[in-house]
């Protein structure tokens, strides 16, 4: 995004406007390739490995799953952990018998229905340093059209391990307990003029339910090349100032391998290309899975073993003197449904209590 702004700015600087126009391209039929997406951490499982196939670039469809494969993980002590097939090409470990241990090395093995054998490079599970603190900073901002858009910057502090190369990835998720499991509209007829008006209709949750907010496609990476052994201070995200209530977050710090870091850093470089002069040349990103019998076969994706440290915090938002902007729902007539709904498990919602809640 920023790179693009530079181009635009340069052009504007030149008193012009640079233009970005959508274009049509046709993509030919492709030979689908095996895609592996799997991970083992030191947090309790189950861990999943997804097997799928690559799809045409302009295809909006869901990835084709690879079913009926035999999938297992070996550790460096010769233990074998089998994965059970679930739906849509997802294979899961048994959480009662297997949890990743820092210092061990894990290798993924796959045998497809057609009898092709694949294997990952051995992955060393490196422990992640603990997250020291999470703190916030209030930032006042006004949008160009005069509306206050104040927010909090959320920072992470963590002590880097001196004397070794560390590669990091950070993820965060915000959980909010849900009172209403459904919002909708209900037409209400005004008997005087016969016109119907839409009122908001809210439906209670029958059970505890949490709404999850996260940056689904964010890649927040870092390494300690310039900060070895230091206390890292990292901006993780920005959260809105829409309430004085505490903001609950779970932040995860992953210790990546050099290979894993290079993979994700290449992804970051290539998915953020803006067509400008600073773009990285596109290239196929090498993963760490290969066909045991055919080194020429391109296998996409990777299997990673990473240590994760996790911290749950309630971010205080009541230290700001200025009041938050008014709730847009104030003054709106809300109808409450007499029924209640269950908490539908999804990537946006969970009925399981988040860690640290």
């Amino acid at each position, binding site marked *: 995004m*920023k*790179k693009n*702004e*530079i*181009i635009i700015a340069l*052009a*504007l*600087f*030149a*008193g*012009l*406007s640079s*233009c970005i*126009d*959508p*274009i*049509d*391209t046709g*993509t030919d039929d*492709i030979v689908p*390739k095996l*895609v592996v*997406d799997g991970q083992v951490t030191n947090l309790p499982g189950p861990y999943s490995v997804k097997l799928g196939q*690559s*799809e045409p*670039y*302009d*295809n*909006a*469809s869901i*990835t084709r799953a690879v079913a009926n494969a035999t999938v297992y993980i070996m550790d460096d002590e010769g233990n074998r952990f089998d994965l059970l097939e679930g739906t849509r090409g997802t294979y899961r470990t048994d959480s009662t018998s297997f949890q990743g241990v820092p210092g061990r090395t894990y290798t993924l093995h796959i045998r497809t229905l057609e009898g092709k054998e694949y294997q990952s490079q051995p992955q060393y599970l490196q422990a992640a340093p603990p997250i020291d603190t999470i703190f916030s900073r209030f930032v006042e901002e006004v949008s*160009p059209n005069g509306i206050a858009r104040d927010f909090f910057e959320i920072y992470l502090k963590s002590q880097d391990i001196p004397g070794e190369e560390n590669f990091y990835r950070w993820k965060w998720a915000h959980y909010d307990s849900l009172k209403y499991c459904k919002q909708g509209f209900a037409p209400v007829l005004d008997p005087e003029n016969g016109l119907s008006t839409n009122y908001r209709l809210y439906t209670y949750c029958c059970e505890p339910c949490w709404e999850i907010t996260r940056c*689904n*496609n964010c*890649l927040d990476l*870092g390494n300690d090349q*310039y900060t*070895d*052994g*230091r206390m890292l*201070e990292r901006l993780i995200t920005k959260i809105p100032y829409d309430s004085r209530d505490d903001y609950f977050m779970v932040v995860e710090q992953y210790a990546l391998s050099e290979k894993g870091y290079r993979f994700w850093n*290449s992804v970051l*470089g*290539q*998915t953020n290309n803006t*067509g*400008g*002069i*600073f*773009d*990285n*040349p*596109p290239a196929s*990103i*090498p993963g760490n899975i290969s066909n045991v019998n055919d*080194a*020429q076969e391109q296998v*996409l994706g990777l299997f990673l073993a990473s240590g994760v440290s996790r911290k749950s915090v309630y971010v205080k938002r009541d230290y700001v003197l200025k009041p938050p902007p008014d709730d847009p729902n104030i003054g709106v007539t809300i109808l409450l449904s007499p029924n209640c709904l269950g908490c539908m498990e999804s*990537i*946006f919602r969970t009925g399981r209590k988040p860690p640290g809640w």
Partner: protein
Amino acid sequence: MKKSYGLPGLFFLLFWVTPFQLQGQEKLAVVKNREVSFLGVVKSRDDNQALIGANVLVRETKAGAYTDLNGNFSFQLPQGNYTFIVSYIGYESTKLQLTLTRDTTQVFLLDPLANFLEEIEVSGAAQDRNISTPNLGAARLSSTTIKALPSLLGEADVLKGLQLLPGVTSVGEGATGLNVRGGNIDQNLILMDDIPVFYSSHLLGFFSVFNPDVMRDVTFYRGGIPAGYGGRTASVLDIRLKDPAADKWLYQGGIGLISSRMMAEGPVVPGKLSLLVAARGSAPNYIFKVLPNPSLREIDANFYEFTAKARYRFSDYDQLSLTAFFSEDAFRIPGDSLTALEVNATSTLFKWRNSGASARWNHFFNDALSFQVAGAIGTYQPGFSIPDEAYAAKFSSGVSQRYVKASLKEFNAKHNAELGVMVSGYRIQTGDLQPDSETSAINALSLPDERSTEAAAFINDEWTISEKVSVMAGLRYSWYSYNGPGRVFQYEPGEPRELSGISDTVYYNQGERIATYGGFEPRLALKISTGPSGSVKFGYNRVIQYLQLVSNTTSALPTDRWKSSDLYTKPQIADQISAGVFRNFKNNEYEVGLEGYYKLVQNMPDYRSGVSLLLLEATETAILQGKGRAYGVELLVRKTKGRLTGWLSYTWSSTQLLIDSPYDEDRTFSGKYYPANFDRPHVGNLSATYRKNRRVSFSANFTFSAGRPVTFPESKYTVDGIFIPNYINRNEDRTPSYHRLDLGMKIDPDPRNTRRWKSYWNFSLYNVYARRNPYSLFFRTKNNTAYRALNRVEAYRLSTIGTIVPAITYEFKF
């Protein structure tokens, strides 16, 4: 034959002798009349400056000569009536009829074309130089030519002017540098009065660092590179600054939308020491301040530069000239997206600085033999700084070259020979990162400097074997050493080189050689005349390049680092063969040239994906080397005389790279040749100037080029919920083609004004029909919802300058 050279007190001819002179003298030997000597001086009426290399023709005898360093020329002629025609690039030709009865001295004053806007010329001091010398792929651009071209925002720019010549392209608008005959931008040797220039751009690539006011001319070799030049494989761009005016003080300046400039030149000690100083600067920040987007408002950009030149004449036989140059750019952008430092900064300030100085001493033993020594130092220092408290940091780096070159030149009717040696020292400060506040979490990190030495000996002769055949034969031997102190990492054998695979480190002390390379670089060019107005030429040259710019972005960034060849990164070696057919029509009014070339480059660099080169000591874990090949055909048609002048060029070419490695993951695109980023198979340029009258002239450029290669993803897949494009074959598709028309008009409001104050107006329109020319195509997955099916992929086209750009500049002289 020898008489014309033997007269004491006459000055040797500095440049080559053309077949003209031979013809003239042969005829003259038949005539038995008493001979008189005719001594002439050619000067510019404008500033009384001697014109070097002006062409003098005696119509009656068809004898020709070039003026020497002091603007002098001489003839031995029988008594009689003669017509002398004197011409010089950028000046109006003058004609003078004289009756010679005794030894005569005559001063010729030429009027610069800037006053009369008569014509522009691309190349060649002699009208038929294109057919009479063995040079292939050489061209000369005068400052006047460059200024006459319509330009983006009115900024006359030598690099943009060169892009109108066949065989020269760039990645796109706003991209740094030139790609010459399939070469990378670091393969051009750029010398400004002998000062090596490593980065030639202002504002990331929109303008070049060369002030058009102080330039005299530019000689550009894209083939047939004489043996005196070396170290860059694709081309030589030899920029000569004008000599300071010797008899009175002159001032010149201009005001434009982007930059304003001022120059003063004149004598300090009359007849001995003269001086030129020039400055150019921009302060366009205000343009950003009015923008609505706050992140764009934070952009800050400016540049300035100083140039000074002094010339000291000890005598007619000895002179010394000194040049100094300094330029600095500052560019502040929001964020740290260019640094790859991966600390989340709110803004980054980039600075890059060019500085250099040179001294050249010329000594003439007699009119045929001269000796010259040039010493120069050129330094380029890019850096950036991040202001944020938690990660406040300063990065600096640099590259510098210092060298001494001494050569002996012998010049006579048959030979123009040069014999010389050159010793260069390179020092690359590969990168230094320092925390910039007490609380900064950045560790100080400083990579060791790279030091290397290059030495070369060369001999080059342009030998006129007969009227029909002439040859330029040269041989250069270069030797290179990568010097200690330093350390070399050893890697596990049989595996791709990775940081995690470092098995051992070998240390070298100061004075030890870590790696040495060397080789012969033959240069050859042959001309065979096919008649009075045509010739065919053949050429071969080899150039070895020991220093390279490593950059893994589409176009180079100011902070990209230079790399000395070491144990792992081998020097680049380019071999080029070329051939051409040249013919002039209508008394040299029209020139037509057709050239073809084939070039092979060994050890062209490419880069591993996902590895940042910034502050990386083990660059061998990021650099892959392969082969490059380029071939093409170039056509140039020029009209050199009359009210309408200009040229038409067309190039068909192909440039490809091959990266091969024993390791699968390093074999970019399965070890097949793929087109380079700047490969444009068809490029055409039409450039014309029409002089309506003394007051007004018009100019126009039309540029056409086939699209630049882009890579379309073959497929996509998801890992951890993130869409990842999969690219199989690099650069197999192309952007749509590029074409653009520019118009310019120059007005001299009062052409009859002969007082000292003169002023001109320049108007230009860039991209007249506002075409949204594609710079590139790129793909983006809409990664904004969690529902995969909604994350459609879209392809976009980026145009850097998608509209018409008008500009106005005002120039003055007094």
